């Protein structure tokens, strides 16, 4: 018995806090997962290099390979104008992120309550749903001319388009989230003497939350997509604008740098939404854990 405790070291008592973090980190390091991830990325980078610079296959010569990209991206005097040391790079990133934050915030602030009310009240759904379902299929870029006519300046249309796309996704998911709640929870709440407002607070909102967060992860992706598309058409700063501007000026390296940056930022923002969701819905995470997921 003593030998077993000795080998387990400081794990006589259940690990908490930082100890737990170290334990989990250690477990992760000895498993194959992180190494597979690294190997995957390495393989992709290698294939990219082979196509663009190694073997210079066909039209891939027109694209900058990883060597050309990293030469510019990480140098203090980039040949084609954008690197992590140039202020311009961060200006573009900052502007795009600012727009996304605003658009996503607005879309969520409008979409979640509307979706919840639509799910909860038959009347509201009957009034609003047909309108939303007819507007939703219109591609975001089809709204560009209308948004330029409607809203002054550059920022207005860009943010409007990102908000719109995100709004539809969020609203629909919130509404479906309410639909997904089992009728028995409503009955149980009714039995226990809840008012309509109690039911909204204690059943509708928490019950729809998993769906809402799934929707939010999709919606932030959609917001980015619409934002970049909008920036390409009518912007003066931002990562989307950078891509188009680079293409117009025949410098391909900033174009690819901007794309990769978008990838990272997009991943990060989705991860933020996911983490927020997991924090708010500890019950859901634990339930899934019980099922072995």
């Amino acid at each position, binding site marked *: 018995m003593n030998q077993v405790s000795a080998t387990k070291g400081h794990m006589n008592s259940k690990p908490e806090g930082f100890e737990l973090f170290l334990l989990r980190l250690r477990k992760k390091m000895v498993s194959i997962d992180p190494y597979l991830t690294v190997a995957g990325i390495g393989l992709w980078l290698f294939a990219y290099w082979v196509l663009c610079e190694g073997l210079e296959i066909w039209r891939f010569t027109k694209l900058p390979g990883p060597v050309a990209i990293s030469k510019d991206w990480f140098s203090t005097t980039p040949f084609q104008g954008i690197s992590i040391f140039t202020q311009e790079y961060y200006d573009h990133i900052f502007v795009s992120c600012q727009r996304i934050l605003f658009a996503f915030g607005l879309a969520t602030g409008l979409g979640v309550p509307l979706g919840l009310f639509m799910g909860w009240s038959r009347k509201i759904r009957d009034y609003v749903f047909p309108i939303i379902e007819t507007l939703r299929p219109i591609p975001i870029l089809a709204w560009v001319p209308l948004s330029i006519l409607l809203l002054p300046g550059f920022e207005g249309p860009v943010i409007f388009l990102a908000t719109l796309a995100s709004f539809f996704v969020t609203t629909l998911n919130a509404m479906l989230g309410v639909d997904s709640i*089992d009728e028995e929870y409503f009955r149980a709440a009714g039995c*226990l*003497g809840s008012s309509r407002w*109690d039911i909204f607070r*204690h*059943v509708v909102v928490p019950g729809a939350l998993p769906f809402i967060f799934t929707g939010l992860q999709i919606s932030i992706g959609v917001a980015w997509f619409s934002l970049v598309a909008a920036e390409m058409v009518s912007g003066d700063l931002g990562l989307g604008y950078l891509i188009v501007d680079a293409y117009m000026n025949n410098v391909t390296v900033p174009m690819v740098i901007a794309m990769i940056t978008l990838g990272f930022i997009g991943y990060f923002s989705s991860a933020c939404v996911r983490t927020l969701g997991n924090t708010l819905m*500890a*019950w859901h995470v634990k339930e899934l854990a*019980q099922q072995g997921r």
Partner: protein
Amino acid sequence: MAGKSHKREQTGALSIKNVTKIYDPSGVNVKAVDDCSMEIAAGEVCMIVGPSGCGKTTLLNAIAGFHSITEGSIHLDGDLLCGPGKPKAEQSAERMVVFQHGALFPWKTLQENVAYGPTVQSAMSAGEAMEKAGQMLAEAGLGQFIKKYPGEVSSGMARRAEIVRALINDPKVLLLDEPYRAMDALTKQIMHESLLETYDRTGVTIFFITHDLEEAIFLGDKVHVVTTRPCQLKKTVEVRIPRPRSFETQSSEEFRTLLEEVNEAVHEEAVKAFQAGEREMA
């Protein structure tokens, strides 16, 4: 019937008179309940037994106020719950339901779940409710799990917690819709003993739907056998086994005789239901 609660006089007498319920799903009239009458005395454990899909849940739903009735009336302690002019009863904490698949709110801990009723009814402050909830859960043997979510505990514990959630509201009638249906036999035994112990302590009227005949006789004072759809009262068997009961009761002579009696009545209905190709409503 032993061990009545000293805090409440006998309440919870249900009177179901000539209740008929006709559904109209997809424009085809479905008569779920037809002229069903039964009397449930206050403080009695009343078991409803019948084949699946015969309309027993409809009866429970009518008492709880989830569905309306087409004809007839239901009274609780002489007050009209639903009847002519008032087809649907109001949902109320007087008639608490424990659901078949369990309806503890997954987003609240067990303690928060149990405290929910008194808090929203403003019967107690939130703090008091949480304390009482913790107490009652501990009495039910769940003291260690009060801060856990329903997704983290076993179904047996969740079901017990749900019963505590119902009882904290001091209901007149406890309506149970096949609550132990999805459990293995061993968990069921524990559940039965727990329920009997609770009943001996509180004396609440229990309206229990089941298709498990042994469960019905073991727990009940009266077993009402109902016919296949449309639901009507076919036979009432009185269970005179004295309380408190233990699982040894199940091997007694009296128990076996009663089981035979009930079985005969139910079997006939089960065969009819099977032949009619009833789609299980559960």
